[in-house]
């Protein structure tokens, strides 16, 4: 076991990285950097899980770190970046309801509200260290920030990234509040991958003409070739 105090300090630094990536995801208009910010955020989550594993020693944390590393920092970002290249959209400058500045200010309020609400709700549970409590607050806040991205962006592909950010928040929350059985975490990741694949493919459909769309579906081998297509 390494020095627990040092590890806790490291986790605090990682929290800060998460906040920074979240703020970046909310305010950036460049799609490619959005994907890299998401990958960085996932990597931070992996590191947090690893540090927690070194403190607590529960093997499930190691497993979570491993599976997140493979799926969330490598496979999903790669896949989305690939799709972005295909649909040739570089920027997402349209927003519903909230522009980035408002979202940032709003997320500040959200963090405050979540903090107060959680400290009320979690009074009943066993006394927690401030680190774990703050992790939970950050998890929920990250989730709300992801939701803002999902609902304020117009492009489906940025919506997907918002959803992924939300899921990161849920994972963070789960890491600090309790230890879920690994099988559950694993199934969630599977679900995430299917969702990402489906939505991005649908996105290709939205962002191209329909004839193009079907050609592209062939390229993804989702639909078999037919001669007498309409």
């Amino acid at each position, binding site marked *: 076991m390494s020095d627990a105090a040092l590890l806790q300090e490291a986790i605090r630094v990682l929290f800060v990285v998460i906040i920074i990536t979240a703020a970046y995801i909310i305010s950036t208009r460049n799609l490619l950097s959005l994907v890299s910010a998401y990958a960085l955020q996932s990597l931070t989550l992996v590191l947090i899980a690893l540090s927690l594993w070194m403190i607590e020693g529960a093997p499930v944390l190691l497993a979570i770190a491993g599976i997140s590393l493979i799926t969330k920092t490598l496979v999903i970002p790669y896949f989305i970046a690939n799709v972005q290249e295909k649909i040739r959209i570089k920027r997402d400058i349209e927003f519903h309801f909230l522009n980035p500045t408002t979202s940032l200010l709003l997320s500040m309020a959200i963090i405050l509200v979540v903090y107060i609400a959680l400290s009320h709700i979690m009074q*009943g549970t066993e006394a927690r260290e401030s680190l774990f409590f703050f992790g939970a607050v950050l998890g929920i806040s990250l989730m709300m920030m992801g939701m803002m991205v999902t609902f304020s962006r117009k492009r489906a592909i940025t*919506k997907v990234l918002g959803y992924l950010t939300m899921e990161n928040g849920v994972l963070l929350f789960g890491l600090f509040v309790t230890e*879920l059985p690994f099988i559950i975490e694993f199934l969630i990741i599977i679900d995430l991958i299917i*969702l990402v694949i*489906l939505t991005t493919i649908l996105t290709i459909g939205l962002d191209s003409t*329909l004839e193009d769309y079907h050609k592209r579906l062939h390229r993804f081998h989702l639909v*078999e*070739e037919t001669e007498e297509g309409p």
Partner: protein
Amino acid sequence: MILLALLFCLVLALILIAISHTAWQMNNVCIVLGGTYAAVAGFILMFMPLPVTTFLVASQYFFIDHLGIYEVLISAVIFTLAAVYARGYVDNLLESGELNKGSLKLFYGAWVLLLTVITLAFFADNLALFWILAELTTIISAMLVAILYARENIDAALKYIFIASVSMLFAFVGLIFLFETSRTVLGEGTLNWTVLMQHAPQLPAGMVVASCALIFVGFAAKSGIFPFHTWLPEAHAKAPSAVSAILSGVLLNVGIYGIIRVFAIAHQTPAARALSGILMLLGILTIAIAAFSMLPQKNLKKMVAFSSVENMGILLVGIAVATPLAIFWVIFHIMAHAFTKASLFLSAGILHRQYRSHLSADAPDDIVDVFRFQPLAAWGLIIGGLAITGTPLFPVFLSKLFILIELGAVSLYLVGLVLVLLFIATCALGYFVIINFTRVTPTGQAPEVTPYATPLTMQGPVVLLLVLVLVLGVAFTTGEVSFLNQIVAELRF
């Protein structure tokens, strides 16, 4: 064992679909699979002592109790009939070029996958497992919505996925809360529904309110409850009608089923009062929104979809009342609504085929001479409409009546309010039917549309469903009553 059998059936069906060449072969697989599930469910229902836990692999994850088998039976029947209907319907979609022939395997593959996943979801004992399966149903059904060759469908599917999935994440946070609560109380964390039910009275109220409220957010979105209902009419209206029937008849039940299960836990704690209030408010708002959205509605399938929203609101009100009798009728209403709504969507689908040349996505339906071209579908819609609005002799009448009576014990003003709202919804539906079905081409003029020869496979399910609905409303056997009572007893209301 049953789990393995289910998975075996699924894999077999997928292989058969993969190697089959024509649409009909694939369709046969779907019908047979649905029929098999219905038969197995019927067999378990009749001949096995419930709840079944011993026959399953990993028994802390799956179990079969009365509510589960009841829901599975409903969905299997609807899936089978919808599959029969899809035979003719898909043929026509292919002819008109709305569906690409290459997508057929995807369509039927998703169909059998959806059926199996829903069945597994109803058999799940672990709430987290149920959550994941429910989430999968969203994704697979969105795929079925997006299968048509049109951009609006992709739009509707994406909207559906995002609203439902985002809300479901909240439900997952709620589940984490619940898990942590159970860990503080029981020593070891669990999301096993049976265990949670046994220990429910010990759970602290504050945490239960928070976790259940979050879980309700997710499942409410899945069943189209008020603030999250916006995806529902679009997805239902844009999907192929066979899929709409499934969405409305089966998928909405998944959300309500989750709410019932979780509320059954909360009901045994002091948290029940606060949660009942939330559910009651949401339920009445949902009915109101649905009723007022139905008034100006010009599109038939959207009209029927909003009627689904309205019925989900009634179910929520019934759950909020939470007396044993109310829950009894809620369970009954689930079945009544599922069958009636499926028949309505199937009839609407026939009209959709008949008048499609005039139908764009949001445009009003140009229904002319309906009794001349499609008498069966017209009568199906009229009878189904009468049934869904709660005319006596039909099952919805019974459940609505008794839920309202139980609501009267809570507040008479609420009864009045809900009655007014239901009246508005009924008027909207009636007005729509009268306006559209009485439109005829003046004599002497040649009708603009060519009649669509509705195949027998499309007419059969409509008739069957209507007969089923009528039987359900008229014949109320003691076996049925005792079965429903057992469900209520298992839920400990």
